[in-house]
């Protein structure tokens, strides 16, 4: 006994094939249209962005040669002396890197405190006045949309050169970024403890303290650490506009072609950023573990 695959009658088969063909053709047309739009955008941006591929390929050799220039000459026979010459300013640079970390820390803490005090007003489930909520959300949006370098430029004009404008610029940007994340965390809490505490006649502040804060604190800390990591990178370039930290020295050595200094400072920054990344990741995992246990 053999099985034969039943074939549909010819006209029905053709109808199905036509429908399949039409569906495929429609999809192809869509992809083609998307591709054309993309190509047009690329052409337009290439024109606006002054893309010059000829110049790019003619000068591309300068990129590896620049990298080659900033790599210091290290000879095995005089390794100690060469290293000492490369990192001639180690103490000074480390102090500047410490200042950079301090700028990032103060900015994160200051911004985080502002964000904590504002996030409950921006959360849809806790804020009682829609108008206050709208206002707080717009303020947070403004704080995180304006780049921190722009704030730093304005603050340098107002507060003078140095780390003070850098800290304030990072704090404002952090307020905006963390305020949004924090208010989203607050919106996702379990409302039963809130109802329980407010049923005992607690005020709004007491409700936040005893019903909301215990639920959100570990998330807050985790987001804060993540932001600290981002702010360390941000603080490293604050010096470009005169707002303190190691960036000032970096931009000077790039502009003045102190090649080996460029690589020395860059390595310090990259190493610090990596260490901070690893440390905050560890801490965040510990925090998340704490949350799932309780």
């Amino acid at each position, binding site marked *: 006994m053999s099985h034969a695959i039943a074939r549909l009658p010819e006209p029905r088969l053709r109808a199905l094939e036509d429908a399949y063909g039409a569906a495929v053709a429609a999809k192809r047309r869509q992809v083609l249209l998307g591709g054309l739009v993309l190509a047009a955008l690329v052409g337009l941006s290439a024109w606006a*962005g002054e893309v010059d591929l000829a110049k790019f390929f003619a000068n591309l050799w300068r990129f590896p040669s620049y990298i080659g220039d900033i790599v210091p000459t290290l000879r095995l026979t005089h390794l100690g002396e060469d290293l000492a010459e490369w990192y001639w300013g180690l103490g000074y640079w480390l102090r500047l890197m410490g200042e950079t970390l301090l700028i990032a820390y103060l900015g994160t803490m200051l911004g985080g405190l502002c964000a904590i005090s504002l996030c409950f007003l921006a959360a849809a489930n806790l804020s009682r006045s829609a108008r206050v909520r709208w206002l707080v959300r717009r303020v947070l949006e403004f704080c995180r949309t304006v780049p921190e370098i722009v704030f730093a*430029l304005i603050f340098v004009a107002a507060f003078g050169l140095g780390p003070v404008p850098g800290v304030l610029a990072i704090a404002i940007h952090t307020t905006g970024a963390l305020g949004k994340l924090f208010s989203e965390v607050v919106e996702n809490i379990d409302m039963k403890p809130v109802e329980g505490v407010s049923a005992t006649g607690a005020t709004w502040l007491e409700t936040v303290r005893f019903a909301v804060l215990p639920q959100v604190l570990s998330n807050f800390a985790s987001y804060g650490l993540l932001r600290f990591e981002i702010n360390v990178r941000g603080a490293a*370039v604050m010096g470009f506009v005169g707002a303190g930290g190691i960036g000032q020295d970096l931009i000077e050595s790039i502009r003045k072609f102190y090649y080996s200094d460029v690589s020395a400072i860059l390595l310090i920054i990259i190493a610090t950023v990596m260490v901070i990344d690893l440390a905050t990741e560890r801490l965040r995992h510990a925090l998340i573990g704490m949350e799932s246990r309780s």
Partner: protein
Amino acid sequence: MNGSAPTAPRFEAEALADMAGLAARHPSIFRVNWPRRALTVAIVAVLAGLFISGFWALGFSFARIAGGLGKLVEFAGFMLPPSPGSYATFLTYLMALAQTLAIAFLGTLTAAILAFPFGFLAAKNVIPNVFLHFSLRRGLDVVRGVDVLIWALIWINVVGLGPFAGILAVATSNFGEFGKLFSEAIEAMDKKAVEGVASTGGGKLHQVRFGLLPQVFPVIVSQVLYYFESNTRSATIIGVVGAGGVGLHLYEQIRMLEWQHVSFLVLMILLTVAVIDFVSGRLRFAIIGNAKIVA
């Protein structure tokens, strides 16, 4: 229904009177966890101490803050009403803004195209070579660790001042990000679809095209769009170091204390960022719905 239901105040009074009894019956609730409390206090004290001494170390002072705030209020007064001065300046700013968008768009696209093959190379399940995986990942980490402004300074040495250097800078720094994200997306994919295609007799290329790409592509496109949004923000400031876009004008106007121009430029940037966020958010939603993008 004995009609003598105790009222709330009576409950409270009874409970308070029996505090000692309550404590004896539920010792675990009333016991103070001293080590834990000490740890909390110590952490808070260290953080607060560093916070306060940090302000002192960085040269904060009440006089300086008060003076700066006074100046800020003054600047805010000068900023109103925002105005570019003349129509010609407005056109210049508009062109610079277009340049900014071009930097963000081309930079993101170039990075995505270059990082796509690297994503496969750095994915554990595609090339299971521990050494290659480790060295590629660390290399991408180094590229990522260098800020986009620093990349801009380096590219300026290669192609000169202007937006082209900005495009290359955004492309380089995003290349590091995308390489990591793409390889994670590829590592997270489901092997079954690829096996299914193989079982119907599909070749290696068929497996990638029909088994792998349909899974990975939407995730990658949405990640690229997300980065386009964030690059629009960073491309607005890349001009500060001379790599094109609206940042250069912003920098110059702040330096010359032309506050009306500054506020106008900031408004233009805010509007552009809002529009780009809206459009790209819609596109992302159309592609993958409301799924989470950043792991």
